[in-house]
């Protein structure tokens, strides 16, 4: 069989209706040959991580434009750890100030992207950093 496909969850947590960016990124990942489970708007951290468990996802990508990135990333990361998904990549994008990006890194969140970033860069980042094997 062909090489293992990278499975990515794309979700928008909380009260945030701007999903164009999430869709654009999802589409770019699909065009790069990944399998993207799109969860859509107004997701709770619980629902996101539950979906990631059932999908055995390699990557969770959050799109957050509401300003609530710290609490959402933190909560999702905690739930990932407690659900056995500690080895998976958590990444995302939105309007996220540089100083918060540093904080997020300390929480175990990967690189986060913002407006103007190159789609190919996002694709490559996920390709390189996605967990590949599981036991």
């Amino acid at each position, binding site marked *: 069989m062909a090489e293992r496909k990278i499975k990515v969850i794309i979700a928008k947590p909380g009260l945030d209706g701007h999903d164009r960016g999430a869709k654009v990124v999802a589409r770019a*990942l699909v065009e*790069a040959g990944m399998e993207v489970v*799109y969860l*859509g708007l107004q*997701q709770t951290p619980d629902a996101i991580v539950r*979906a990631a468990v059932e999908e055995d996802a390699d990557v969770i990508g959050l799109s957050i434009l509401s300003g609530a990135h710290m609490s959402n990333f933190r909560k999702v990361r905690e739930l990932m750890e407690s659900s056995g998904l500690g080895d998976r990549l958590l990444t995302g994008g939105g309007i996220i100030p540089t100083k918060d990006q540093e904080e997020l890194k300390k929480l175990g969140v990967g690189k986060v992207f913002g407006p103007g970033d190159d789609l190919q860069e996002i694709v490559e980042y996920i390709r390189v950093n996605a967990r590949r094997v599981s*036991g």
Partner: protein
Amino acid sequence: MMHFRQGLWEEFFKGDRLACARLITAVENEPEALPEVLDKVIPAQKGGIRVGVTGPPGVGKSTVTAALARRAVQSGHAVGILAVDPTSPFSGGAFLGDRVRMQDLGDDHRVFIRSMASRGGHGGLSPATPYAADVLDAFGLDRIFIETVGVGQAELDVLDCSDLVVLILQPGTGDVIQALKAGITEAADLFLINKADLQGTETLLDSLRFLMDISPVRKGRPFPPILEASALLDKGMDAVSAEVERLIQDCVGSGRYREKRRSRLEQEIRSAIQRKLWDGYSMLAGADDAIRAAAEEMIEKSGSPYPYIRRACSRIRIQLAEERAGCDKKE
């Protein structure tokens, strides 16, 4: 040799959801794991019922599936959903969007939802879907909904994979001539006209009733029931769910369930033998190159492929005979 890390099977049988998810990943991606998975899960199955949900793109398969799943949970069932969406033939990627329509199931732990990309499957499912259903059955889920990609006329894999099939149609998508064509309409155990609040429902009903008039009995069974609903508004779905349950009882009671299971096993045996023989042949030194060279030669000489096929088959026969002789000697 065991394929999985230690403890995975114990976790699976204790009800760990990540272990279950991991096994589905294995049947999707690691063909060498399949024998171990089936060896473990088939003896553990408790007779989960597989309900196929199929129909053209956009008729509301995911919404109907969610509505049926919710009702099954309310009547005390543990529910699995396998939602298949198409793989791009160009990039190999897939946008799996069925969960968007299933949000209200998102926090119910009596439901396990898995999205699957259709990969190499051309019949509305992915090649691994039947095995994923086997895993969910052994996980203790007794109602397993299998939602196909949007299908047209003849994508019928769901028929082999499910115990019964719900075909969803919507108003405004065809006339009697469409309904008369062979294929998907013949596979249904239940016709559901979704979006029945829209114009054109009567026309579609007429077409289906006409089908029923001219063939009231199909393969010894009465014509499938025809129901109307509007799943998005949750109208009429109680009746649909009740009818699905009735069909399930009938399927089990009439022995059709057993027949379905037998034919699934037969098919697995056939396709596994095919795979094994093909793998054996293609591992012969340079089989792929030899086939390409032979095809080139056929083009040059306008030759038929059959002389080459006959020679290849006799090589396989000789190889099998040698293997058997080897086995006999060992014994």
